């Protein structure tokens, strides 16, 4: 160790670790999109079209996601309804 480097500790939390973390998330997301069946975007558009007959939802309100497990696949459907559409029962 040199005299000057004595005062500098090796950074373990520099920007490289942030880069790795961001990449891991991003790449996992990219791969999920890549491996998804090709009908997902069309399914998403169709569901949105049907939904809009009944509720005035935003174009981005429907989210379709396919998750793989070891033994099965889960088709996850997430719909965000606008404020005020909820029944106050």
């Amino acid at each position, binding site marked *: 160790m*040199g005299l000057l480097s004595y005062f500098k500790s090796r950074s373990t939390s520099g920007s490289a670790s942030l*880069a*790795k973390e961001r990449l891991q998330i991003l*790449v996992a997301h990219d791969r999920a999109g890549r491996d998804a069946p090709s009908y997902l975007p069309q399914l998403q558009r169709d569901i949105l079209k049907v939904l809009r007959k009944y509720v005035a939802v935003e174009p981005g309100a429907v989210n379709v996601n396919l998750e793989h497990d070891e033994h099965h696949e889960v088709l996850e459907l997430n719909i965000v309804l606008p404020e005020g559409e909820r029944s106050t029962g």
Partner: protein
Amino acid sequence: MSRIIVVTSGKGGVGKTTTAAALAMGLAERGFRSVVIDFDVGLRNLDLIMGCERRVVYDFINVIQGEARLNQALIKDKRNENLFILPASQTRDKEALTKEGVGKVLTDLSEDFDYIVCDSPAGIELGATMAMYYADDAFVVTNPEVSSVRDSDRMIGILSSKSQRAEEDREPIREYLLLTRYSPQRVERGEMLSVEDVQDILSLDLIGVIPESQAVLNASNSGVPVIMDGESTAGQAYSDVVARYLGEQLPHRFLEIEKRGLLGRLFGG
């Protein structure tokens, strides 16, 4: 039968052409008949890196369109008799690269050559997909930097789905990770992704790590593939890459900070 290698990356400026030139020259130096093809139609640069820019008469597109014979377009390297260069067209539209045309040229070349190195353009457009379509092996050139790693991952996906091997359900393209512009100093300081970090994310076989080196710029300035600069760390690292590609087991070099003299150790950062 020859082996077709594509040098690809997705992102531009990471060292594809430098790598294609080094690889082709390295294989030629070991006695293999090698040809390196520039697929970057409209933005040809391989001829500059190889130092034969003033000898281009006909190009790849001329051959595909039947305006020139293959041996009229091939440029024989002046330093190594085993090495030939097939330049890209500087003016034509890249749409001229057809699957049939490229396939025909590669089939003709494979009668005469042991290795065909395809220097891919950046991006995922036609030139890049044509460069990889017929490949047997792929070098995915990556810088230890977020956008380059992400683009490499994208290319890996395309390699496994849009190649002739994938379409014909044959053994997939062999993919290798080549990390370039690596700076052990910056990795040590936690500023740059390490070899292990990039491997964790891309999970590819590591064929080599090329250290950041002034020699690469010097080589391209003078039109000499950097592998011929045996004094430089980059040149030596490329020689190791060629040896590993041919099956030799070599440890990776230049991953650690070089030892400095006493003064350097006292006052260096």
